């Protein structure tokens, strides 16, 4: 079985995250770049299946700027067998539509039985890519899974939504996305880091995938404006002189919070 895991480099979730106000893009210099934790969990799902099923091939796939190779290699250090990195100047500021198109084309090129991604990244928080990719590839998708079981020809799991928990399953090939309920990714060890250097690492461009980022017939979203978040204004301070409760109730009523 061939499992392709979608991974992403993001600004450190626990560090400072900023937008470049001029370009509207994430300011990659503002904090350390890390492999998105949900991506690590996705890799872990694939690797634990591979541990129990020898012969399983695990590939990590990422669309990312040129400097992201070290982050993608972390997936290899964890234990994936090979990596594919889509990098192209035409992808700067790509929206979810273009990203899905690119990843779907890359998946067709790599080949897959199962695609695993995180349900939502910690930076963009779009949460739509796995479903969009499945649509473009014309395969079933099962998103936001809290539990995953993979067999020879099926993938099934538990899908949580706000209203209910559903048992879902799909025949392979398929695309799934997983939530933070799945186990954390394993720590790579020094041997893994050294081995990662020698594993196949393919870099592909938009031309390799036959995609034109400027294609006029494709609908693309356009950023109209970006601005700083306004600074927080000083709040109302209530000092208790016996009537703090009344003042609080008044404040809530005035602001239509009750």
């Amino acid at each position: 079985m061939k499992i392709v895991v979608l991974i992403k480099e993001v600004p450190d979730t626990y560090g400072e995250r900023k937008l470049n106000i001029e370009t509207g893009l994430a300011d990659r210099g503002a904090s350390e770049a890390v492999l998105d934790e949900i991506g690590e969990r996705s890799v872990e799902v694939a690797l634990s299946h591979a541990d129990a099923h020898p012969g399983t091939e695990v590939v990590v796939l990422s669309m990312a700027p040129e400097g992201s190779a070290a982050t993608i290699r972390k997936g290899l250090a964890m234990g994936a067998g090979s990596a594919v990195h889509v990098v192209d100047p035409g992808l700067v500021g790509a929206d979810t539509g273009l990203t899905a198109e690119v990843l779907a084309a890359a998946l067709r090129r790599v080949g897959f039985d199962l695609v695993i991604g995180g349900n939502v990244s910690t930076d963009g928080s779009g949460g739509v890519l796995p479903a969009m990719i499945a649509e473009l590839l014309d395969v079933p998708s099962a998103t936001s899974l809290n539990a995953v079981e993979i067999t020879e020809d099926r993938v099934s799991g538990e899908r949580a939504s706000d209203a209910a928990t559903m048992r879902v399953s799909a025949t392979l090939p398929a695309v799934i996305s997983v939530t933070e309920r799945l186990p954390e990714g394993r720590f790579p060890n020094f041997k893994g880091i050294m081995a990662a250097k020698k594993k196949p690492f393919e870099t592909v461009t938009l031309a390799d995938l036959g995609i034109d980022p400027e294609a006029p017939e494709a609908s693309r979203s356009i950023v109209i404006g970006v601005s700083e978040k306004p600074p927080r204004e000083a709040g109302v301070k209530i000092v208790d002189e016996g009537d703090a409760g009344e003042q609080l109730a008044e404040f809530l009523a005035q602001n239509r919070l009750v």
Partner: protein
Amino acid sequence: MQFELDEEQAEWRSILRRFVEKEVAPFAREYEEAHRYPTEIIEKMKDLGLFGVTVPDQYGGMDTGAVGLAIMFEEISRGWMSVAGALGSHTLACFMIAKHGTEEQKQRLLPDLATGKRRTALALTEAGAGSDLQGIKTRAVRDGDGYRINGSKMWITNARYADPLPVLVRTGTQNRGSRELSILLVDGDAEGLEVSRDLGKLGYRGIETCEVVLNDVWVPEANLLGGEEGKGLKQVLSSLEIGRVNVAARSLGIAQSALDKALTYAKQREAFEQPIAEFQAVQLKLAKMATDIQAARLLTWWAASAIDRGARSDVESGMAKYLASETAVSAALESMRIHGASGYSTEFEVERLYRDAPLMVIGEGTNDILSMVIARGLLKNAG
């Protein structure tokens, strides 16, 4: 001249840092207060392959080199130095077995030691002999196809978990001389081997430091390290450079943690309506700590990279251990001063650093002995 880690070493450091932040640091205070052995942390370190850092690849280890080892010991000690103790003598013993063991000994022991399935330690020092190892009294005499050992060892970390426990013994008949000593690998369940007591300590808690009694313990000839008598002292001395890098790196971990905590506290704590970090008196301390730590770190990496190049590193590793451990002691105290009364309180972790740091000055060759090693090296090379 190259002062940076290479890409793999930097990656190794960042993985360890995350591991320690998640799996070690949050438990340090609670475990140490309860004198609790960090079993769970050790199991996780096994998963990460940390027990195999000095075991060659062919025996299942991951041979990170001395720089990789220094990175590991610094990062772990930054979370809690005691945990590094579970790896310290284990890595030294593995290094010795890999370097001096017979092929049969290596194949029999190293694969399990690399994964941590079996663990080991080093029983060298005695109540009456530490820096002066030639003064040990534990004796082994030929008995059938093996040796019978009698004696006792003191300050043995991990003794309870060691299988085998390498024991430095006197096999010769002379009182002094480098050919009189040998190392015997004693099975953990050998009859007559007893861990008689745990020693109370100022710091370095959670990890047991033991007295070991060997009462008529018989070991087969096959467990004589390297298969030749009289090589013990040489075998031990060959691992000392790695040992000093290990303690230098642990010192860096303590010192860096002291600085990290001082920086955080100085920015949070206010006095006279401003953070105390604004005061020059505090800034002077921070600057001195950071400078000393970086100097000691570069010295440690320099000594470690000499080992990795196959060059001599006795003076180099001696200097590194000397400066780094003195820095750990001073940084812990300076951090405590910056913390004020909070630093003296067990509610904060600085007091633990203050208790752990002095061991770095004493262990693995006291700084006085190491100063002699450094001076001898200097004098030998002076015109």
